[in-house]
């Protein structure tokens, strides 16, 4: 909650620090009289804290104001979120499967060929700019092989197959960077848990390697993985914006970029507020996921 408030204040102050009054954005033929009228109507002649209080009060009631084309900001944002959510979810699923899987493999065969291969690939994944992978994948899969469409978007509900064809490239590209981070974290977490006593016990009991890796070691490593996903969400959102821009998907990220390109202040404030809120909500979910993964958290919570 504090995080959302502080982030929203930061944006508000930052945007107001920009040169020119937001009233300028209403077009050039603003005579001093209209200028004053707009200033007054949008409380721009009042002190900054008053403006902020008014804005946040309305935002709490679901009213994010009107953007510079006169469209309600809240409505625009809500319309853009499903696409972005789908993109982000797909990316998280892909990167988790890829990153956690590769991390487990690397840790299990530590210091041997699979470990080196996986680590090298992960390092390459960290060194490659996501937007370049996006460009190259468009060249290869869309422009030359014609397997997948290069840009655009079809709603999941109107045509699920077409929707997936549009989403697969952007979400895989988006997933690669996150997968590399996840792989490295999973690997080191797995190495930690594999050296624990209970793993030796499990081996001594004669459990199968699958059960040891899967239900003993991995389960404990997933706590780290979950934290990383939560932490990487800010980066993921930045990535989403660029990927949406390149693939021509009109989602939340593209809307945010567009707001900045157009200097649409109400829209900028709205998108950042929504982004910050989303970040906090997801981190809350991450905290909840802990209690599913780690009984100790549950016990500590219950005893309080």
């Amino acid at each position, binding site marked *: 909650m504090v995080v959302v408030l502080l982030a929203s204040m930061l944006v508000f102050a930052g945007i107001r620090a920009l040169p020119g009054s937001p009233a300028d954005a209403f077009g050039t033929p603003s005579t001093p009289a209209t200028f004053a009228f707009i200033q007054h109507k949008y409380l721009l002649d009042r002190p900054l804290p008053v403006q902020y209080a008014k804005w946040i009060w309305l935002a709490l009631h679901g009213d994010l104001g009107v953007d510079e084309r006169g469209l309600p900001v809240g409505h625009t944002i809500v319309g853009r979120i499903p696409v972005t959510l789908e993109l982000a979810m797909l990316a998280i699923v892909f990167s988790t499967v890829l990153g956690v899987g590769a991390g487990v493999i690397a840790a299990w065969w530590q210091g041997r060929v699979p470990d080196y291969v996986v680590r090298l690939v992960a390092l390459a994944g960290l060194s490659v700019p996501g937007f370049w992978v996006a460009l190259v994948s468009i060249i290869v899969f869309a422009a030359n092989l014609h397997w997948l469409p290069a840009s655009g978007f079809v709603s999941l509900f109107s045509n699920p197959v077409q929707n997936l064809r549009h989403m697969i490239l952007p979400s895989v590209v988006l997933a690669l960077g996150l997968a590399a981070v996840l792989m490295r974290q999973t690997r080191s977490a797995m190495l930690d848990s594999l050296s624990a006593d209970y793993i030796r016990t499990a081996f001594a009991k004669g459990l199968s390697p699958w059960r040891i890796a899967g239900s003993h070691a991995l389960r404990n490593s997933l706590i780290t993985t979950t934290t990383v996903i939560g932490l990487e969400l800010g980066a993921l959102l*930045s990535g989403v914006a660029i990927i949406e821009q390149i693939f021509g998907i009109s989602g939340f990220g593209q809307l945010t970029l567009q707001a900045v390109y157009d200097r649409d202040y109400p829209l900028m404030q709205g998108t950042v507020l929504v982004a910050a809120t989303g970040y906090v909500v997801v981190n809350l979910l991450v905290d909840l996921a802990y209690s599913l993964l780690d009984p100790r958290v549950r016990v500590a919570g219950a005893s309080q």
Partner: protein
Amino acid sequence: MSFANAVLEENGPESKSVGSRRTHSYWLLARRFLRRPFSLVGLVILAVFVTTALFASWVAPFSPSATDFNAILSGPSSHHLLGTDGLGRDVLSRLIWGSRASLQAGVLATLLAMAIAVPIGVVAGYYGGWVDLVIARLTDVMLAFPFLILAIGLAVILSPSLTTATLALGIGTAPRMIRVARGESLTLREADFIRAAIANSASDAVILARHILPNMVSTLIVQGTLLIPAAIIGEATLSFLGFGVQPPAPSWGVMLADSQAYLTQAPTQALYPGLAIFLCSLSFNFVGDGLREILDPKTQR
């Protein structure tokens, strides 16, 4: 954007055997570093990039802005080794000149992030209490803020340029660096030799400057080396979106943005700058990884 992911790598709250590092001789460390093939390869590639960037005016066969309208979008030839772009400019020369922007942004942004983050993080970790609480909260806020918005906001306020991109990258990375510095000084504070210094009634300033900072230098070097590639990618991304280096100045990100117009006719235009970014940041990552292996006692198991 995978920018700054690198910092997060494997630096959870870990206890370190502090103090034993000093006993290694530097020669021994250097030899152990060079014996790792990937570190060596990284160092060599890096040396090539830095040398060509420093001596760009001698190495590059053409001026980065010289146009040759008789050879537009030409393929590789003996005259233009990597061909020419849509305005007939020599791609190789632009790559070489563009490396300056990338390296400059990468190194300066990282130094800036450290200059901001280390004092804050060290103080937070060392003093603890409400100071730490406030700093940790603020760091969380900064982390919640999508970095791209910050960078773009700065570019809009100060007009986009390499300097604003570097500033934004430095500020954007600082929160993660604060976490690292804070974690380090938090663990160092509990070390016996710090307690001994306190018992000897050393002042806080002396403890911070003489005992805490020198002992986290190796961690900072490793983190810094891993931050540079992230910042290089960040610079390329910002320039690509038009919030960094402004065309016609050469920058790998600008070249990629230009290449978008010829994706079908001349796909190699999009290939070379991307490969350059990839190789450059990969070599930094190799070097950083190697440094971590030799400097971090935790990995010596």
